[in-house]
């Protein structure tokens, strides 16, 4: 019963898919088919569950019946334990798709005398395997045998023979073993099972427990070597691989408003892409939550459901604070559109939180998920885990076409930059809110650092939180640099006064010029009048003189006539 592998593993090694979320990805297709795999780990780290899920998935999805041999828990206990995961073992055993066998080894009942072997166990296993035609077998945990039998030499030889027999039967086996102090398993089972070894750990950091899985070895196959956080929730086992990102989700051209007109303008005039992931980072008090509130408000106004995960404030506090800046979110809560989930991350740890988000998203089917802030996860886990988790989360949201809106609190000295860079690579839009300190005053600046597929503004705007929500203002860019806040206002008024002065001066000069012109013109009129008068007088004089001359001439003629002398004498001699 060979499963065709759809993974691109070139080793050609046949693999049995586990059907466990994430595990098939990191093993490049599943566990080695027809061979035993060792799963080691401390008590309570999920070994039994991994084995059980491997069998149940095999029976349900891949038509491979399975046998579960338990050396610790009874059949009833096993059934009860996985009942909450929705595994109905009863039904599967009735259909002969699953067999449970509890092998009890009680030391006090057993007296050893002389040579023996474990053929009874072998016969028992073979019989059950043949009965349901099992392809998968889980032995959980075979090390219990070590407490039941004192002759370790025989036991070790028999274990070796057991794994050989299982291989001979061609079943894909999962053998669990409890980890020792320095070794993978307390009794060195890894010595016998060398094809594939998976280690589960339950580690504590900063008082938060995280489960992790690592593939220690996988003979003949490529596999992921990192430690992967995994979680156990009501859907069973799931592993969060960083590298198995599935990037083939549908994208939309649809745009959604940020709830702030000026910010929409900065984002090519239309806001964000629907279904994209948006990161808003900034230092404390720069207004990240206000942006969240605007986003939520505008989404609810469009009739969309919003899931708001608040990790630092109670929902009532958020409602109150947002009301003070003129955003009434309460009406959306009442209308059933806005769902708050406020709690500290440390309550569940990283894995628990992811599970909670998955569950809420599946239940509510929101179109927008707001996480304020994602830093909260950093206190709950390590950086790699946080990144892993966020990758998984953004991926999950994108695949469901849900817009993700995340805030990140950056420290004032910029030390968390690397975290931001790590996270920002997963984000489509990255908005930075910055403090601008100037003239004894702290103001907020906002700019769009990147926005995939949007021709965004490269300008820093001043970010004002008013009674009427967030407003963006152009910052003052003048000869003395960028100014914000009251400095901007002062500079602006200074500018205004200066401008006014110039204008007044211009006006004054113009008037003066006008006046001068008028004065000159008046003078010119006067002169013209004078000229006129002069001309008239001169003319008059000329007339008089001419008349006078004529009279003089006349008189002379009369005189000569009278004297009758020198009549022929030419005149003027």
């Amino acid at each position: 019963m060979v499963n065709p592998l759809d993974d691109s593993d070139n080793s050609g090694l046949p693999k049995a898919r586990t059907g466990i979320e994430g595990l098939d990805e990191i093993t490049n297709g599943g566990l080695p088919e027809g061979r035993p795999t060792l799963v080691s780990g401390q008590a309570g780290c999920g070994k039994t569950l991994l084995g059980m899920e491997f069998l149940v998935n095999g029976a349900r999805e891949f038509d491979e019946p399975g046998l579960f041999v338990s050396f610790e828990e009874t059949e009833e206990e096993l059934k009860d334990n996985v009942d909450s995961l929705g595994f109905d073992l009863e039904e599967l055993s009735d259909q002969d798709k699953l067999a449970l066998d509890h092998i009890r080894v009680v030391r006090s009942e057993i007296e050893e005398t002389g040579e023996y072997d474990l053929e009874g166990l072998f016969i028992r296993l073979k019989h059950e395997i043949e009965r349901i035609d099992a392809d998968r077998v889980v032995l959980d945990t075979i090390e219990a045998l070590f407490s039941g039998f004192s002759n370790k030499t025989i036991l070790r030889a028999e274990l070796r023979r057991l794994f050989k027999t299982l291989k001979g039967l061609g079943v894909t086996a999962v053998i669990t073993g409890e980890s020792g102090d320095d070794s993978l398993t307390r009794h060195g089972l890894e010595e016998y099972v060398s094809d594939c070894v998976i280690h589960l750990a339950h580690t504590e950091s900063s008082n938060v427990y995280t489960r992790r899985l690592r593939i220690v070895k996988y003979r003949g196959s490529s596999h992921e070597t990192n430690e992967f956080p995994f979680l156990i929730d009501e859907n069973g086992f799931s592993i969060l691989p960083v590298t198995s990102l599935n990037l083939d989700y549908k994208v939309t051209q649809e745009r959604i408003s940020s709830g702030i007109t000026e910010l929409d303008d900065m984002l090519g005039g239309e806001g964000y892409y629907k279904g994209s992931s948006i990161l808003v980072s900034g230092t404390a008090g720069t207004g990240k939550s206000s942006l969240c509130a605007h986003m939520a408000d505008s989404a609810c106004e469009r009739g969309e459901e919003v899931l708001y995960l608040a990790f630092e404030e109670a929902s009532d506090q958020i409602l109150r604070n947002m009301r003070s800046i003129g955003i009434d979110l309460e009406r959306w809560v009442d209308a059933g559109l806005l769902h708050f989930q406020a709690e500290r991350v440390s309550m569940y740890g990283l894995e628990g939180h992811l599970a909670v988000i998955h569950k809420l998203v599946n239940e509510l089917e929101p179109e927008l998920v707001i996480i304020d802030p994602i830093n909260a996860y950093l206190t709950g886990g390590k950086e790699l885990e946080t990144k892993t988790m966020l990758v998984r989360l953004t991926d999950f949201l994108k695949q469901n076409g849900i817009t993700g809106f995340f805030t990140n609190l950056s420290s004032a000295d910029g030390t968390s930059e690397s975290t931001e860079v790590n996270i920002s690579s997963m984000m489509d839009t990255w908005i930075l809110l910055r403090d601008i300190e100037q003239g004894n005053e702290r103001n907020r600046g906002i700019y769009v650092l990147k926005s995939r597929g949007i021709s965004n503004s490269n300008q820093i705007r001043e970010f004002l939180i008013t009674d009427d929500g967030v407003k963006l203002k152009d910052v003052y860019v003048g000869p003395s640099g960028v100014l914000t806040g009251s400095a901007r206002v002062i500079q602006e008024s200074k500018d205004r006064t200066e401008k006014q002065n110039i204008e007044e001066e211009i006006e004054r000069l113009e008037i003066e010029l006008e006046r001068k012109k008028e004065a000159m013109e008046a003078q010119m009129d006067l002169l013209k009048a004078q000229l006129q008068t002069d001309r008239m007088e001169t003319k008059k004089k000329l007339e008089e003189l001419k008349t006078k001359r004529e009279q003089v001439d006349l008189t002379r003629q009369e005189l000569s006539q009278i004297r009758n002398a020198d009549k022929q004498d030419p005149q003027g001699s």
Partner: protein
Amino acid sequence: MDEEKRENKDILDDSDDLDVSGEFEDLIESSSSETYELRLFVAGMTPKSKRAVERVRRICDDYLEGRYELEVIDLYQKPELARGERVIAAPTLVKKLPPPLRKIIGDMSNEEKLLVGLDLKKKDEEGN
């Protein structure tokens, strides 16, 4: 088990409940009159199996003549019994009666241990 204890108490009414070793000795005394129900599980007729069968038969004849039932079962023939009787090792001798239930595994090469396992000898006499 409880029934058995009561029975013993009836026989030996002045026995101290807390004195376990005394009770144990009494148990051995009392067992001399009880009927034994034994099952010997083997996996095929290997030399090991044969040795076990021979030795169990001999002990039974020597110590339990006329008051024992011994059934030799080949697990290959009846594999379902391995589960029913919770047998892992082979050979396994199961003492079903008298109680307590006990499993003696191996080729029975150590007679002392076999006798102790069958409550035919006190445990503190076990010198080897």
